[in-house]
């Protein structure tokens, strides 16, 4: 398909998606007039939907098309109509609201995640950025694992919501939804290779990756343009299961160190590489570029680029810090609950 056709196709998506994504950017307060317009839209939408759809239709699965469509049109109407549901179970995992309160304009919600069938939940469990928080007001939010009870195999998450406007959000309904959970995570930090980093230690081959995902570091944009990666030299070393050192070599004057993260899209395996010498001095990479080598996009590679031009190369050893997971759970969990005001 030609680029222009793809550009035209993506350009013609429905207005509501453009509006939804534009709203996500907006951080300004709504003006009083705009607020009246919003309430009018909410009232009109509620009026129309009550006639067109019965309440029982809206009291459907948490991801009902009617709720999702109404939410893009009017978040406050959608949240008013969404029924309260404090517990959600799927794939043997139960999510339950423990408490939800608002204090000084900030909402704090405690939610438990418990495995009813197996041993998949532990102290490392996280929600893999798959969660969404639907509110009737503009806000920013965060979610973190704060506690794990080994006896009941339950992890507790704290969700904090800070609203951008200054009106009372007590009694407002929040919908918290999750689609993926990661668990059994391990972190490794240490030496990953003592191989010679000298420039003359061998020739390397390079190639153009199938797709470049992105990069980090101050100079990453420079490297991303027409990026050439090292051809893998096999698994040189694997410091932890799911991560392997696959190539080392110089491209021009820069040292490239290549790491493979197995099944990154499923496991969120990730990390970074640095160099350290005998005095304990740490040298960070000037850029890292991540890429896939084939259409399957299963294993992700990251290439870390170092400038060793003014360093005693032989004194440096490769170190890495990696986080891996071997438990990926999918499901559809959604809870809806009102916020209570702390008295």
């Amino acid at each position, binding site marked *: *398909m*030609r*680029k222009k056709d793809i550009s*035209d196709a993506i350009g013609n998506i429905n207005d509501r*998606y*453009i509006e939804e994504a534009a709203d*996500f950017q907006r951080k300004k307060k709504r003006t009083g007039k705009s607020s009246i*317009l919003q309430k009018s839209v909410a009232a009109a939408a509620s009026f129309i939907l009550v006639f067109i759809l019965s309440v029982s239709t809206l009291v459907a699965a948490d991801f009902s098309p009617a709720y999702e469509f109404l939410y893009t049109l009017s978040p406050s109407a959608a949240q008013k109509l969404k029924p309260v549901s404090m517990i959600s179970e799927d794939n043997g995992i139960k999510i339950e609201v423990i408490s939800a309160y608002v204090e000084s304009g900030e909402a704090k919600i405690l939610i438990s995640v418990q495995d009813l069938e197996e041993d998949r939940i532990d102290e490392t469990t996280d929600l893999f950025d798959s969660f969404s928080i639907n509110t009737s007001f503009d806000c920013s939010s965060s979610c973190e694992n704060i506690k794990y009870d080994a006896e009941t195999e339950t992890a507790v998450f704290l969700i904090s919501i800070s609203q951008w406007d200054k009106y009372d959000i007590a009694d407002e309904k929040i919908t918290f939804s999750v689609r993926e959970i990661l668990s059994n995570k391990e972190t490794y930090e240490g030496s990953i290779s003592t191989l010679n980093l000298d420039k003359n230690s061998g020739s390397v081959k390079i190639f153009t990756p199938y797709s470049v995902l992105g990069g980090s570091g101050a100079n990453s944009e420079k490297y991303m343009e027409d990026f050439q990666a090292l051809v893998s030299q096999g698994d040189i070393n694997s410091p932890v299961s799911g991560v392997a050192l696959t190539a080392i070599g110089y491209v021009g004057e820069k040292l490239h160190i290549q790491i493979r993260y197995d099944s990154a899209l499923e496991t969120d395996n990730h990390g970074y590489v640095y160099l350290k010498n005998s005095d304990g001095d740490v040298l960070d990479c000037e850029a890292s570029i991540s890429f896939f080598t084939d259409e399957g996009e299963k294993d*992700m590679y990251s290439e870390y680029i170092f400038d060793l031009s003014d360093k005693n190369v032989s004194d440096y050893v490769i170190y890495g810090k990696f986080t891996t997971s071997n438990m990926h759970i999918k499901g559809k969990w959604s809870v809806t609950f009102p916020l209570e005001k702390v008295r």
Partner: protein
Amino acid sequence: MEEDSKIIDLLYKREEQALIELSEKYGTACKRIAGNILKNHRDAEECVNDTYLAVWNTIPPKNPNPLRAYIFRIIRNISIAKYHENTCIKRNSYYDVALQELENCLMAVMTVEQEMEANELSDLLDGFLETLDKRSRIMFVRRYWYSDSISDLAERFQISNNNVSVRLSRIRGKLKRYLKKEGVEV
């Protein structure tokens, strides 16, 4: 800042105050969209001015609702047209890089035999976007419609650049599977 309905009233009355209001309310966002595509400040400014002119010339008789999406579409289309006519633009625009990602994902969608129209793919994309959770949907639209860079998205979602890249790749994988399920050859 005026409500959209007031701006449209001013346009219908042919009052130039409408353009001032448009600029105040949507100028920054329009410049950002144009900048993401063109990477050239002067070209972007020119496209924004062309957008105001297009709005002036088309309203009335049009009465778009939502106005914002209408304006954003115009600036995007004008910027893309400018991008294609200017062969000197280096291949480092966020728009071009984002399009390359989608091209890799959709490379085989339209063949000579299949002859899928772009608007058919748009309908499929709408259906696909409905299947995504809100955060993923917004990330997809911001990357491929608004042409936001990876760094912009990382800042917006408060996650790392790498996390953004992985999430986008996962979403593109879902798109491929969705299209296959809908009977489209990918």
